[in-house]
């Protein structure tokens, strides 16, 4: 909202700092510490202020499973990674340039991800016997040479924090809690960025508690000046601003983007928005966000279970609202029967599945792409539904709007797949006004003349005739219906026909799906084909290789059912198709089925997103053979 932010950004830049400011292309920083150390907050602050400064930013929060873990334990480590760059980036970064770690456990967990020669900033005060033991270090890694390959800065973060605050009358516990701001301040300094963004935030956030404003600000600045004052840092870094398309930007994660996408779609369509949902990790935030938008007229219904979640939505759709239901794998499984009803009743409905590690309860907090097959095939009977997938946090906004548009235009439920990675990761999003979004035309049936519930327009879509409209009283349901009249029909030919009409309706959507573009050469040896959240890693990998002069192309699917019309044509242009997926090859299966082409699946089913490097290596390996 306050664009003036951009003007303040470099207030401190012209100061004459002792260490040199070295230009770098892009940087990946990870803040890591105990769940209680406020690392998520620290990371968010840094990434938002960096994004606000005009950089392209990718983030990846990574925190322990749902229950609070004991302080200092390995499984209690919480991390937040920020990647920012002078060019268009797609991922939160593969390897860490700078690790800020607040305790030994955080060091232990993250060590493997640090770049050779990377920087490690540790809170030395936490490296006591107890914490070392909890982290499973037999000897102190700060002393035993473990960190020989890195540039290590050991700072007395806790002590300094307490020192700075000692006259403020805070309790020891309260005071200690500020220490994350020290780390943040220091990193601001290290990357030659002003801490103003966070200072403002602190002021607003704790407006009612001046002593906390004072404490946090002091510690933040203490960290900042620590860099400035002490001579231990030999250099400072500066990343050139990115060259992003013109426009107004904000930072956004995928879950928030879905929530806003739904609100925007409803506004665009001129409909009220109804969400029927049940909490589940990692989708709960969408319900939570929408619950806040009461003054936008949004109706959220926290149902007793996932079935009630989707069914209330179906009911509201029958009554004329734009409706959605949000969930993750296990909840998706529960909704399958009701999805069939929506297909039969031909009512618009947006189903968001924020995929997580499966099967069953699986890995609730980890990411995966393994609900694709279920989304396409997982219903009784011939039960076709369009399936879309978001390729990045900000794309969650656009894909959700697209899903709503298709749902309404074709009177059909639509599945949108996102996953834990993009749901929680964030990136800058260019802002559009509602009026600039694709049109979503709603035509409620009004006229009685010629009205039958299952007549169809050119898109094979039936009329939306909502209760309250005089003269249009009619009945629909889950039993097979007679073509046109919608009456129950057991007629064999009619059933055959209806099954095929429903199938064709979904297939016909391909007529308006944007054709795929291939990035790189348009034909050749290797095409990398992706879908959903792998976009960032694939794009980075291919662009990196292309820069090196290696001939590799890539294209990315946001529409999984139906596929873009030129996909088959594109596949034919390449000798080898490589599909990196966070599953055992679910897209690969669809491709085989549809095009009789056999892609190579590169799977990673580890609850973690691909790194660009992993894909680069795989590509190089393939090209070598």
């Amino acid at each position, binding site marked *: *909202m*306050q*664009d003036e*932010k*951009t003007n303040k950004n470099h207030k401190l830049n012209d100061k004459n700092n002792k260490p040199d400011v070295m230009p770098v292309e892009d940087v990946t920083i990870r803040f890591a510490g105990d769940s209680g150390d406020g690392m998520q907050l620290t990371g968010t602050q840094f990434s*938002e202020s960096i*994004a606000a400064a*005009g950089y392209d930013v990718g983030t990846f929060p990574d925190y322990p499973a749902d229950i609070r873990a004991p302080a200092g334990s390995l499984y209690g480590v919480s991390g937040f990674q920020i990647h920012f760059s002078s060019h268009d980036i797609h991922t939160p970064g593969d390897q860490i340039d700078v690790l800020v770690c607040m305790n030994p456990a955080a060091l232990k967990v993250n060590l493997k991800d640090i770049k050779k020669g990377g920087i490690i900033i540790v809170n030395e005060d936490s490296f006591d016997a107890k914490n070392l033991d909890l982290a499973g270090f037999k000897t102190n890694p700060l002393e035993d040479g473990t960190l020989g390959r890195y540039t290590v800065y050991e700072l007395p973060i806790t002590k300094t924090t307490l020192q700075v605050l000692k006259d403020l009358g805070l309790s020891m516990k309260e005071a200690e809690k500020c220490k994350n701001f020290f780390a943040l301040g220091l990193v601001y300094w290290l990357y030659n960025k002003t801490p103003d963004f966070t200072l403002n935030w602190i002021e607003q956030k704790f407006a009612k508690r001046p002593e906390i404003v004072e404490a946090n600000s002091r510690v933040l600045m203490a960290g900042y000046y620590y860099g400035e004052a002490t001579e231990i840092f030999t250099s400072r870094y500066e990343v050139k601003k990115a060259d992003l*398309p*013109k*426009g*107004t*930007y*904000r930072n*956004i994660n995928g879950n928030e983007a879905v929530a*806003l996408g739904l*609100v*925007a779609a409803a*506004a665009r369509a001129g409909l*009220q928005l109804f969400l*029927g949902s049940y909490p589940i990790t990692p989708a709960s935030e969408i319900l939570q966000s929408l619950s806040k938008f*009461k*003054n*936008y*007229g949004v*109706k959220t*219904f926290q*149902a*007793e*279970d996932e079935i*009630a979640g989707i*069914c*209330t939505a*179906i*009911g*509201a759709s*029958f*009554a*004329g609202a734009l*409706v959605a239901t949000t969930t993750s794998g296990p909840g998706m499984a529960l909704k399958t*029967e009701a999805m*069939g*009803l929506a297909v039969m009743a031909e009512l618009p409905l947006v189903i968001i599945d924020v995929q997580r590690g499966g099967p069953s309860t699986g890995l609730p907090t980890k990411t995966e792409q393994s609900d694709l097959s279920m989304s396409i095939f997982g219903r009784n009977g011939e039960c076709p539904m369009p399936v879309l997938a978001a390729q990045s946090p900000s794309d969650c906004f656009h894909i959700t709007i697209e899903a709503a548009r298709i749902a309404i235009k074709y009177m059909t439920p639509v599945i949108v797949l996102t996953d834990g990675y993009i749901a929680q990761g964030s990136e800058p999003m260019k*802002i559009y*006004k*509602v009026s600039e979004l694709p049109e979503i035309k709603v035509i409620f049936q*009004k*006229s*009685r003349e010629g009205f039958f519930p299952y007549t169809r327009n050119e898109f094979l879509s039936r009329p939306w005739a909502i*209760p*309250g409209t*005089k*003269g249009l*009283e009619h*009945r*629909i*349901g*889950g039993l097979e219906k007679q073509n046109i009249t919608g*009456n*129950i029909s057991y007629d064999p030919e009619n059933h055959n026909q209806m099954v095929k009409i429903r199938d064709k309706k979904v297939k016909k959507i391909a007529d308006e799906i944007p054709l795929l573009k291939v990035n790189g050469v348009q034909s050749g040896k290797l095409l990398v084909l992706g879908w959903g959240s792998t976009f960032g890693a694939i794009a980075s990998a291919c662009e990196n290789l292309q820069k090196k002069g290696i001939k590799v192309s890539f294209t990315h699917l946001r529409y999984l059912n139906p596929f873009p019309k030129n996909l088959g044509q594109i596949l034919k242009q390449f000798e080898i198709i490589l599909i990196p997926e966070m599953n055992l090859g679910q897209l690969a299966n669809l491709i085989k089925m549809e095009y009789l082409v056999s892609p190579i699946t590169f799977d990673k089913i580890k609850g973690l997103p691909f790194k660009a490097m992993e894909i680069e290596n795989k590509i190089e390996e393939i090209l070598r053979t």
Partner: protein
Amino acid sequence: MNENNQTTSLPKTPLPVPKDYASDRDVRWCPGCGDYSVLAMVQKVMAQVGLPREKIAFISGIGCSSRFTYYMNAFGFHTIHGRALTIASGVKCANPELSVWVATGDGDALSIGGNHFVHTLRRNIGMNILLFNNRIYGLTKGQASPTTLEGKITKTTPFGSIEHPVNPISLALGSEGTFIARTLDRDLKHMQEMLLKVYGHRGTSLLEIMQNCKIFNDGAFLEFTEKETKNENVIFIEHNKPLVFGNKKDKGIKLDGWKITVINIDDGKNSINDCLVYNEKSKELAFLISEFYDRQDLPMPVGVFLNIERPTYEDNMMRQIEYTKEKLGIGDVDELVKGNSTWVIK
């Protein structure tokens, strides 16, 4: 469009008659099924209160009783087994102006749909639930339902049911329902009275209808519906009236501490003044009386067990929306999408 305008510009629409609420579909229940009388009475009551057809949304699950929807000339949605109440909840939330009705069975509402039953009642979402309790699965041809009595032989209990049945009224009370009543498919006058009250109540109204399934559970409620036995076996509970029953109205219900006894009010020792006076505002009484269920020593209570006011879900929802609009201002979606912190790339 034209047509609509025309209609509203007419001086006055003629009063509706029951058949205005009948759809053009053949009614396909078995001859003798108890569902017929309910259909007829619902159509009659709707005409009586002059409910505009286009305002009616009739939702049902799956079961014989759930076919009800097809026979009503109204907006209808015959959904999936057990989920009628959730669909109805969505309809009501999206458009609180509608008069939402649900037709459901003992299996649909209490077996697979039991959870939605509990939560709909506690939320008090505005809808009228007609629960056709025939103590059997009709549509699937005669399996036990959650209201099937112990010992009963059905297709799935060839040696007699070993399950203690649900008492729908007690369950509804335990689920924080606000309007809870019972009627009989064969007592048209009573059914009419109940339907009018169902319609009159704001929030979730539950009407259990003891309904005879001619084919798979014929005679389940005979003792309550046949002239000869009815008055001895049924007690009609009415607000502010003493609880009396019997062919000669000679028996009464007395509260002795927290114990219930049946007294003879003609025996000189007791009189009508000793009888408990029913109060439909009392949940305590409703609980006491609801427990007269399949007990040899007590008559089956029929009538309104509970009728209390509590804000409805949709009213609360709309109120909260209005409140936040007032407090925070009507949301501007463009601003929402922008969020609190943006920057411009030029």
